[in-house]
């Protein structure tokens, strides 16, 4: 359903993606691994319309989406749950969720209300906190809210940027099992993770990025057995980034 062809994106002088190509099929969950600065967030941001595309193309169900703005991407069914969550701190949990459905709130209000209920069922921990300012929630709940807000757009393609970063193992497990549940609904997911083990568990397929290109890819089981992946991301040598200590 998604095809990326020779994608190049620059941040100023830094070329963050160097001719990256990949395909994702309907209902698939793809894990994107790689060290800091590999370009993982840039890839997701480009898919969400945040960055100008220098070269290459993004095709969703055969239609070109290159150069479109974020609100267009959301309408087309691509929803990004960004790095650091980026929730609306001083708005309530409920308002955050309702704003997630911005492009259809006015036309399909009833549907949106039902969707909020579904999100609260998916993340029962958010229930009872609907009227709390989102900024007062714990990190785990904020992450759940961010995912919930992303789902409120009813995406065909859900992009998740490091949802487990800075969270306690128990919370990570909860979020990952929710993702596994989400998979069953048929939504296509691209999951960027530093927590390689957790990501490989939910993903069907995984790829490793380095300096803006894909250096390795395969199905999750192969990747888990791959010595290079083990050394770099699963073993004792794994570098803990400062953000993980927050």
């Amino acid at each position: 359903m998604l095809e990326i062809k020779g994608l190049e994106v620059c941040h100023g002088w830094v070329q963050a993606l160097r001719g990256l190509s990949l395909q994702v099929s309907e209902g698939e969950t793809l894990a994107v691994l790689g060290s800091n600065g590999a370009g993982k967030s840039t890839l997701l941001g480009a898919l969400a319309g945040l960055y100008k595309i220098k070269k290459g193309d993004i095709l969703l169900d055969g239609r070109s989406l290159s150069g479109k703005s974020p609100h267009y991407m959301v309408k087309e069914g691509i929803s990004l749950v960004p790095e650091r969550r980026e929730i609306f701190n001083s708005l309530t949990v409920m308002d955050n969720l309702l704003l997630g459905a911005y492009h259809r709130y006015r036309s399909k209000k009833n549907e949106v209300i039902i969707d909020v209920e579904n999100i609260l069922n998916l993340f029962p921990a958010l229930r009872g906190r609907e009227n709390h300012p989102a900024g007062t929630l714990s990190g785990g709940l904020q992450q759940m809210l961010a995912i919930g807000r992303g789902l409120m757009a009813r995406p065909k393609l859900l992009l998740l940027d490091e949802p487990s970063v800075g969270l306690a193992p128990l919370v990570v497990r909860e979020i990952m099992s929710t993702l596994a549940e989400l998979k069953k609904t048929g939504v296509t997911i691209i999951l960027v993770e530093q927590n390689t083990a957790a990501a490989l568990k939910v993903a069907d397929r995984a790829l490793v990025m380095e300096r803006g290109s894909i250096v390795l890819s395969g199905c999750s089981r192969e990747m888990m057995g791959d010595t290079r992946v083990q050394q770099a991301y699963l073993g004792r040598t794994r570098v803990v980034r400062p953000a993980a200590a927050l």
Partner: protein
Amino acid sequence: MDLSSQLLQLLFSGLTLGSIYSLIALALVTTFNITGVLNLAQGEFVALGALLAASLYTAGLPLAAAFLVSVALIAALGALVERAAIYPARESSALTLIIITVGLSISLRGLALLLWGTDPVSLPAFSSGGPLLVGGASVNLQTLWILGMAAVTMAVLNIFFELTYTGKAVRACVINRTAALLVGINPGAMSLMAFAGSGAIGAAAGIFITPVTLATYDMGFMLGVKGFVAAAIGGMHNIRGAVLGGFILGILEVYSAGLVSSGLKDAVALVVLLAMLMLRPEGLLAASGRKV
């Protein structure tokens, strides 16, 4: 007049002046956070609104009609300016955009000079009658009109921001622009709304103060600067902070002018700005978690 009634008198003046600064600051902050543009032409909306209303009134329109027509036209001017000058340059750097608004400010002031000349124009007070005596202070009726207008405007805006979906979408842009983009809010539509709203608020403020201060083609510059200082006191990211900053600045100005020397009035704003930038660049209310 004894000291306490003099202090009370000054407090009224300070609140009145402050309410005008608050409205300008509020428009600046909202626009800044939605569009990334620090609109240095905001003061020009105030001046043009006042001048236009005065002309309409002189042409025979009733005062209320002159007010409404002027506010609507300046709102349209705000929208026009956004589409013509800001929107095409929306991908440019913050510096470029600021320079554009400086250019706009100069052009609009030039236009006002061309149309209205250098002589001040005036509007009658909104209601006749002598000043009211409150606790030994005499309060001009127009002062009450200004305070009332500011209170109503802020109350309406508060309802808009707190209770309506569109208002919350605007706040979402103010709180986190990236996230607002990601939920699908169209920044172009918001930007247009911000400039039109800024025009309307600026014009309303200008018209209400004209019976007291008169209106001149160049009145907007200083008001824009004061609005910016008020916004800086509040922290640029915070709508409530901007309102608070406006009142603080108004009261400080009036007390230092009234109790020390009237020459201090405009200097106070710059001293406060420097002090804020050095001591608390994130603004007074920033510690309370970017409440908007």
